[in-house]
């Protein structure tokens, strides 16, 4: 068992989410807000603006016009999309690096994060959710705990793998058993440290449904399902593989059939090249 306090201290080594992301989140959640308020906050940050414009102009969005200002971005892509892009750019730094403990090459964790977030957003929209930004951001940041836990997983990989292969534990159960804390718990602590809403903390903590199904909410279900689909498609999957528990009840709860599941996968794979370009630009 590792020293948990020492592990938690690792959270401080992460690059904190920029203040502008919080401002954007609160603007996005306020129904009274106007698009110029959003633009005003973004243009103030030059690096963010440059990143945003670069991404708006990639093939993923397929716009015929070149977007050359934040105002234009909001007009052509809509406020919701721009908010998600800003959140993505804000969250990228920590998640792009290689994570040897999880056998993830540089960019792999990020590929999983963005893909999960895009799928979660699509699912949320389909189901008429009002909490799209929270779902997008939670899916994007759900594995931030892996960045903190990476070195400890590296040191315990043999024990963890044995518990998974010999005793039928899921990877996250084995993390908890061997190290004393798992990546979802740590991720929730990071979200708390970064002052995210309690709801977001909750979704990240339970994104593998390790706390059981009794209190399962819509947002967590969506993020869980998006993550499941990414694992099945092998997007940014490492040493943990697909060794997480499946819960068909979640699909029932969301009224999603196995056919819907396949359709989402087919839809995502159909645009995978544009998604890859999009991820590489971010």
């Amino acid at each position, binding site marked *: 068992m590792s020293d948990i306090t020492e592990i938690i201290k690792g959270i401080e080594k992460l690059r904190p989410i920029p203040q502008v992301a919080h401002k954007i989140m609160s603007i996005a959640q306020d129904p009274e807000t106007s698009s110029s308020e959003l633009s005003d906050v973004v243009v103030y940050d030059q690096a963010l603006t440059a990143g945003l414009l670069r991404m708006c102009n990639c093939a993923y969005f397929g716009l015929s016009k070149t977007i050359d200002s934040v105002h234009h971005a909001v007009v052509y892509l809509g406020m919701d999309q721009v908010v998600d892009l800003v959140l993505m750019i804000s969250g990228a730094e920590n998640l792009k690096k290689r994570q040897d403990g999880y*056998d993830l090459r540089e960019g792999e964790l990020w590929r999983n994060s963005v893909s999960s977030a895009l799928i979660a957003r699509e699912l949320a929209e389909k189901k008429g959710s009002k909490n799209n930004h929270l779902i997008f951001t939670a899916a994007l940041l759900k594995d931030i705990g892996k960045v903190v836990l990476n070195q400890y997983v590296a040191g315990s*990989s043999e024990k963890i*793998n044995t518990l*998974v292969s010999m005793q*039928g534990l*899921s990877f996250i159960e084995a993390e908890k058993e061997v190290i004393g804390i798992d990546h979802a718990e740590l991720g929730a602590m990071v979200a708390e440290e970064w002052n995210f809403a309690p709801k977001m903390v909750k979704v990240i903590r339970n994104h593998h449904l390790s706390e059981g199904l009794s209190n399962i909410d819509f947002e967590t279900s969506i993020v869980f399902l998006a993550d*499941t689909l990414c*694992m*099945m*498609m*092998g*997007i*940014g*999957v*490492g*040493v*943990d*593989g*697909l*060794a*997480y*528990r*499946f*819960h*068909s009840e979640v*699909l029932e709860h969301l009224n999603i059939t*196995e*056919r819907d*599941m*396949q*359709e989402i*996968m*087919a839809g995502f*794979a*159909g645009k*995978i*090249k544009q998604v*890859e370009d999009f991820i590489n630009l971010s």
Partner: protein
Amino acid sequence: MNIVVTVSDMKLSNDPETLISTYSLGSCIGISIHDPVAQVGGILHFMLPESKLDPIKAEKNPYMFADTGIPRLFDEAYDLGGKKERMKIAAFGGAQILGQKGLFNIGERNNSAVRKILSKNNIVLDYEDLGGSFNRTLKLAVKNGRVWVKVSGKGEKEI
């Protein structure tokens, strides 16, 4: 030359210097095919078992599905000079999330689709590494048909 096959894609070659790889097979399946005499090889990385899910998508990208992708893999190998009786065929992937049962178990359904399509055409797999909950990467040398599989966290091995 290195060629990478992405998800829902297929690549073949008759250039002996070519290595064909496909990464991150979760529930998807990578099928490698190789004729040592013609020095023809290829990999199909399909994602779902049946094209009836979405015939329009299957028309646009037949490599997404087992039933439209596998016949094309063989047809293209024949076009490049490959012969069925000399062909070595191997399949990898078809993994599943723990406790994924019945219709939800797309990995297992992909595995069944491969078996069904191949047996219908009197083709036997020379090697398979299917199922489990691992993430696999596959590599094929066109020159001699050597195949390597890497399971994340466990290193690479030649089959």
